[in-house]
């Protein structure tokens, strides 16, 4: 088949191209790398969507937060609203790839690539985010927990395009954090990751969300870990119980980045760090973004 490339200027142009079989590319940071690694060849018909203005932007209002599919990780990290109220998402976008990846890589591409190791997935899931998918004639709203069906797989039809992601605003006394285990400080993929979103009122945890990353075929919440926290004082014992529950609720694989046994052991450690950082933020304490680096006592750069 003949290779074709078009650059869409309007959403309608892009949807028409998708309807006739083209595949979308935005920042290109997953599509091309995936082809190089042999995951899937580059599509014969490509439609670039990175110049469609209607797909950009980050909007926060009374309804919550709306991320245009083309919002880059750099833009997410720079957003004061996201840093302040959706902090775990800023933690995640701050460590995606390298500064080259974050300048061009988009939240839409990250979500639709559906990697079980993606950094932003856990925070989005815990913030109750939904994907708005549009095709030529219709639009539907899909909670992210229903969107991902396995590694690299979603329920989206080939003719559908993610146009934005929306989520409600968390209560004011909520704190959140995303932490991952990494071997390298840039161009790294989570060996394991964990997200915690906790609400603390009058010294007691009144709501908790815990999700694990790179520990199951899709990023998923662990209800047993959340139950261990709700109603507690957020002290060492309930935090440890929640971390153990997260590890127990994981089903990791063995691959080049870690064995299943190592991942299970580290799931507990990383989940504990995420919960501790989220609780600290909920209590108004400062934990720098990204929490991943901040929660490790000794960083490589500190050793002279």
């Amino acid at each position, binding site marked *: 088949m*003949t290779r074709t*490339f078009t*650059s869409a200027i309007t959403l309608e142009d892009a949807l028409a191209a998708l309807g006739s079989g083209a595949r979308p590319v935005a920042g290109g940071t997953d599509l*091309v790398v995936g082809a190089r690694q042999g995951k899937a060849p*580059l599509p014969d018909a*490509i439609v670039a969507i*990175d110049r469609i203005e209607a797909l950009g932007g980050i909007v926060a209002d009374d309804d919550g937060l709306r991320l245009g599919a083309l919002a880059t990780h750099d833009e997410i990290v720079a957003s004061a609203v996201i840093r302040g109220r959706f902090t775990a998402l800023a933690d995640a976008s701050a460590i995606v790839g390298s500064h*080259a990846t974050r*300048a061009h890589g988009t939240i839409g591409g990250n979500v639709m690539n559906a990697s079980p190791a993606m950094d932003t997935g856990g925070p989005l899931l815990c913030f109750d985010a939904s994907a708005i998918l549009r095709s030529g004639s219709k639009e539907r709203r899909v909670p992210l927990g229903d969107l991902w069906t396995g590694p690299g797989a979603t329920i989206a039809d080939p003719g559908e395009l993610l146009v934005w992601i929306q989520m409600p605003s968390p209560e004011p006394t909520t704190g959140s954090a995303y932490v991952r285990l990494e071997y390298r400080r840039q*161009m790294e993929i989570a060996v394991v990751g964990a997200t915690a979103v906790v609400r603390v009122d009058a010294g007691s945890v009144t709501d908790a969300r815990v999700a694990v990353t790179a520990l199951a075929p899709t990023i998923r919440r662990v209800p047993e870990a959340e139950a261990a926290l709700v109603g507690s004082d957020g002290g060492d014992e309930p935090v440890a119980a929640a971390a153990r529950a997260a590890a127990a609720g994981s089903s990791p694989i063995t691959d080049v980045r870690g064995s299943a046994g190592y991942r299970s052991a580290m799931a507990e450690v990383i989940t504990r760090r995420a919960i501790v950082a989220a609780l600290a933020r909920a209590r108004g304490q400062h934990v720098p973004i990204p929490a991943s680096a901040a929660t490790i006592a000794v960083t490589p750069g500190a050793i002279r």
Partner: protein
Amino acid sequence: MRVPAVLNVNGTPHAVELDPHMSLLDAVRDVIGLTGSKEGCDDSECGACMMLLDGKPVNSCSYLAMQADGREVTTVEGLAKGDELVPLQRAFLEQGGVQCGFCTPGMLISATALLRTNPDPSEDDVRIALSGNLCRCTGYGGIVRAVRDVARAEEPV
């Protein structure tokens, strides 16, 4: 089928016809003939191919050349002004930040991108920003010192 595009590289427009699957790195090296940018891993791991795209760093091995149509591309050849090296390049030489030279074009571009967004980076800032650029010779010490020297000198990058 080849598709027409205009690649603006280091201020010079190049009207080219490209395979839609060609990477920006291959277009700049093989079609335009600027071979400063290197192919290390071809997998976005090593940063040897790093260029600036509209002023922002990009791993050009993993970026479709067609997506750069009409945008501004800067490669290592675009840093020096004629035969005069910019302060960052001089600092790399003075501090021993260059040995075999293969990572140097990407390192210089990556460091340029860092210094434009953070003119006074800490040592940790430099190490984190350059962690997407692999060097197998220097041990990174000279590279980090070079970037810090330029930041402290307060000269334009």
